[in-house]
C-alpha cells in the first residue's frame, strides 16, 4: 500500500479510530493485523518472508540471552544474520551477482552460466531486514534484553508506518514504546497530522511534479542535450529529497498520531557544509545503522590511518549497494566514500591554505562556499544514482560539460506551467528549510496565532488537492 493512495487514505482513519476505541491491551493485535494487511495489499505472498524473519530472530534472540556459551551465542547470531542476509541476497542481489559472474565467464570463454530468476523484489526488504538485524545484534552485544512477547516483536518487525521505507528503527527505541499505553492526546495527534500533510505535500506536489521531467530525460538520455541533463539532475536532487523525506514525514506523522515516536530521518541535508555533515542529515536512520553495525565493528577511526580510510570507504561502498543491485549505486556509494576520505586527508592542508588567504575573516563567505561545494559534490553523485546504467551516467556527465548541446525545449513538460511551478516550489522549499535552520520556523509557528496556523494547514491541504499529482507513483525508496 502506498501512502499516496486512496487505499491508505481509507485504511489509516479506520486504524486510528479502532486504535482509540478498543482496550489498550488489544492495540498490539490491531496494529499487527493492520501492518500485515498494509504489506499484503502489495503482495500477499511475500508476507511469508516477514513472518520467517520474525520467527528466526525472535527465537535467535531468546537463545542468545539464554545460553551462556559464547559459541552457541555466536552460532545463533550467525544463523539470524545468515538467514536474513541470505533472503536479502537471494531476492535483491542474486540476479545482479549471477549476471556479473556470467559476464566474467564469457570474458574467459568459460561457457558455464549461472541461472537467473525473474521474481518480484519484496518491497521494503532492505528496511525490515536491517531493522530486525539490529535487534539480534543488540541482544548479542548485551544492549537489549530479548523481547519475550512474540506479538509485540512481530509488530516491531512489521509496524506499518515504517515497514517499507523506514525510518529504520532500533529495538532499544521502538520496542519499549509498544509496551506503553498512549492516551488520546490532542497536541500529539495534531502534530502527527500536520507532519503527514507536510510529507504528502512534498511527495505529491513537489516530488511527483519533478519526476515527470526527470524520468523523461533520464530514461532517454540520448534524446536530450546538456541543459536538459543539468536541469533534470537539479530536479532529481530535489525530487529524491522531497520524495524520501516526504515519505519519512508521513511515516513519522502517522506513528505519532498513534502515540509512537520514530527517529528523525532528515534534517535539511542540502544546508550541509561538508559531506560528513550531509551524512549526519541525510537518511539518518540508515547512516547511523551503518555507523553502529558496520563502521564501528570494522574499527571505525580507532585504527591506523589507512585502515580508517578503508573502513570509511567500504562502509559507503556497501551503503551504495544497499540502495540497489546496480553498478550505478555502487559508484554512487564509492563516490561518497572518496569524498569523505579526501576531505579527511586534505583537511589540515585546506585549513592552512584558507588561513593564508585570510578566509576566516569572512565566515559567511566560507560557509556559503562550503555549502555550494558540498551541494555540487552531492549533485554530481546523484547523476550515478538516478542513471539507469553507467553508460547513461557518463553520457549525461559528458552532455552537461558540452555546452554545444545546450537547448531547452519545454515540450517535454506536458503542462508548461509545471516547469516554472517546479522552480518556484523548489525555491519555496529552500526558503522554508533555511527559515527552519536559522530561525526555528516550526517552533515560532507553534506560538503564532491560530488563524495563521490554520491558514498554512489549509493552504497545504488545498495545494495537495489542486496541485498534487495523484497518478499513483511509487516512492523512490520502495525499490531499495
Amino acid at each position, binding site marked *: 500500500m502506498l501512502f499516496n*493512495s486512496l487505499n491508505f487514505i481509507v485504511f489509516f482513519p479506520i486504524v*486510528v479510530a479502532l486504535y482509540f476505541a478498543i482496550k489498550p491491551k488489544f492495540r498490539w493485535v490491531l496494529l499487527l493485523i493492520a501492518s500485515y494487511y498494509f504489506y*499484503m*495489499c502489495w503482495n500477499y505472498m511475500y508476507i511469508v518472508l516477514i513472518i520467517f524473519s520474525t520467527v528466526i530472530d525472535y527465537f535467535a534472540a531468546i537463545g542468545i540471552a539464554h545460553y551462556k556459551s559464547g559459541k552457541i551465542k555466536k552460532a545463533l547470531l550467525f544463523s539470524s544474520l545468515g538467514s536474513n542476509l541470505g533472503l536479502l541476497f537471494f531476492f535483491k542481489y542474486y540476479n545482479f551477482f549471477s549476471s556479473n559472474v556470467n559476464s566474467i565467464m564469457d570474458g574467459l570463454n568459460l561457457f558455464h552460466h549461472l541461472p537467473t530468476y525473474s521474481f518480484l523484489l519484496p518491497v521494503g526488504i532492505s528496511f525490515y531486514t536491517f531493522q530486525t538485524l539490529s535487534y539480534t545484534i543488540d541482544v548479542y552485544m548485551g544492549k537489549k534484553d530479548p523481547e519475550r512477547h512474540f506479538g509485540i516483536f512481530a509488530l516491531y518487525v512489521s509496524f506499518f508506518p515504517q515497514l517499507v521505507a523506514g525510518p529504520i528503527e532500533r529495538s532499544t527505541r521502538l520496542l519499549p514504546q509498544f509496551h506503553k499505553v498512549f492516551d488520546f492526546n490532542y497536541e500529539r495527534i495534531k502534530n502527527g497530522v500536520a507532519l503527514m500533510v507536510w510529507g504528502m505535500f512534498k511527495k505529491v506536489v513537489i516530488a511527483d511534479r519533478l519526476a515527470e521531467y526527470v524520468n523523461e530525460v533520464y530514461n532517454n538520455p540520448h534524446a536530450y542535450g546538456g541543459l536538459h541533463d543539468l536541469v533534470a539532475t537539479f530536479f532529481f536532487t530535489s525530487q529524491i529529497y522531497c520524495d524520501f523525506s516526504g515519505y519519512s514525514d508521513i511515516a513519522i506523522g502517522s506513528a505519532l498520531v498513534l502515540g509512537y515516536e520514530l527517529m528523525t530521518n532528515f534534517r535539511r541535508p542540502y544546508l550541509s557544509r561538508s559531506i560528513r555533515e550531509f551524512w549526519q542529515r541525510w537518511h539518518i536512520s540508515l547512516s547511523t545503522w551503518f555507523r553502529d553495525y558496520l563502521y564501528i565493528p570494522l574499527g571505525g577511526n580507532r585504527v591506523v590511518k589507512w585502515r580508517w580510510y578503508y573502513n570509511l570507504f567500504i562502509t559507503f561502498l556497501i551503503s551504495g549497494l544497499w540502495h540497489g543491485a546496480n553498478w550505478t549505486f555502487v559508484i554512487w556509494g564509492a563516490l561518497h566514500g572518496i569524498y569523505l576520505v579526501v576531505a579527511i586527508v586534505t583537511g589540515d592542508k585546506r585549513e592552512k591554505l584558507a588561513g593564508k588567504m585570510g578566509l576566516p575573516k569572512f565566515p559567511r563567505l566560507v560557509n556559503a562556499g562550503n555549502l555550494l561545494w558540498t551541494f555540487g559534490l552531492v549533485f554530481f553523485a546523484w547523476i550515478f544514482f538516478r542513471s539507469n546504467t553507467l553508460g547513461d551516467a557518463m553520457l549525461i556527465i559528458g552532455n552537461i560539460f558540452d555546452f554545444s548541446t545546450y537547448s531547452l525545449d519545454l515540450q517535454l513538460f506536458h*503542462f508548461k506551467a509545471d516547469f516554472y511551478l517546479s522552480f518556484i516550489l523548489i525555491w519555496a522549499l529552500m526558503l522554508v528549510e533555511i527559515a527552519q535552520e536559522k530561525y526555528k520556523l516550526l517552533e515560532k509557528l507553534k506560538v503564532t496565532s491560530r488563524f495563521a496556523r490554520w491558514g498554512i494547514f489549509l493552504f497545504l491541504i488545498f495545494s495537495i488537492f*489542486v496541485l498534487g499529482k495523484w497518478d*499513483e507513483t511509487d516512492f523512490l525508496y520502495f525499490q531499495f
Partner: protein
Amino acid sequence: MNERLLKYLIYVGGAICLYAFIAVREEPLYNAVLVEKKVPEHFEFTKYGELYYFSQISHFKEDLPKPIRKFRYSEKQSKLEDADIVTFGDSFFDFSRVKTVPERLADSLHKKVHAIYSFYPFNYLNHIGYKRSSKKVFIYETVERMIPIRFDQPQNSQEELVDWGSPGIGRKMLDLVFPKNVEERLTTLLKGSYLTRPAYSAISTFKFDEFGYISSKTPLYSLRDKPWLFYYESVNGEVTGFYYHHSQEEIDKYCDNIATMGKELKEKYNFDFVFCPIPNKYTLYFDKVDKNAKYDDFLPRIFKGLEKRGVDYVDVYDEFIDMDSVLYFGTDSHWNDKGAQIAVDKIIEQILK
C-alpha cells in the same frame, strides 16, 4: 473541547472510511452511494461519455443517448451452435448507447447471430468446450490500438485452456480481503459518490481552468466547436498510439498472426474468418487538436498485408475517413448511430460477397 471534537471527528472519519472499505468489496453498498449506479456488465452505465469521467471537468459534460439492453443479453441472441454469424470482439460491437452491431446484423440479414464479448477466440472456445459444427461467419472486431497488443504474438489453437473454474474458499477469502482493483474502485467512489462527487468535479474544473490540468488518461482535448476528449493509449508515442511509426516488419508480424488465427479458426471450428478493425477516434479526428499530425497509415497498411495473405476483412476506415459528418461521440471513445450503421453496411457487403 478541542480534544473531544477531534475524537468525534476521528470516529466519524473512521466510520466513513470503514464504509468505503467494505463498499469496494460489496456491490450493493458500493452502488448505494454512487450517484450513477454501476450496472454489472455495462461499461456505459453513466450519463455522460466515458472519457468525461477520468477528470469530471464540467466543460466536457455531453449528454449521450441512454444505453439500451445489449444484444447478447436479449432473446434475439442465438445459441452459438445454431448461429449463422458469430460476432467476436471488443467494445465497439458491444457498445449499447446505439443499437449494437450484432442486433443490426440480425435484423438486416434475418440471420441467427451470436455475439461474444472477448478478445482471444481460442481461449474462449476452448473454455466453453465448443466443437466444430456447421459453417459460420466469424467476425472478429478489434479497436485499432489493440492490434499491436493482441497480434504481437500468434493466437493459436494450441493455447492452453485458461482455468476459469470457480476459485476455492481460500482464494475467495483472499480476493475479498485483497481485491485486485481496490484503488480503481475507491477512485470511482471518490469521483462518483453523493458525498464527494460535487467537490471532485469542482476541484477538477478549477484545476483545468486555472492550470490546464486534465487527467493523464485524456491528455489531448479540444473545446473549440464542441467538447472532444481522446484516450491516452491512442494518442501517445507507444505502440498503441497515433504518434508511433509502425515499421513494415511489425505490420507483417501482425498480419501473419491475424492470418494464422483465421486459418486455424477455419480448420478447427469451420469458421469463415472476417477481420474487422475499428479506427481509433484520434485516427479520424486528430486534426481537432493537431493540425500538423500525419497518420502512418497503420490500418491501410494492415489491409494491404491482409490482402496479400488472402484474409477477408472489412475496411471501415476507408468509409469513415471520407465522411464529412461526425461518426464518433466527442467525449466517448465509441461511435455514434451513424458510425455504427456505416460499419454494419460495410460488414454486410463483405458477408454477402
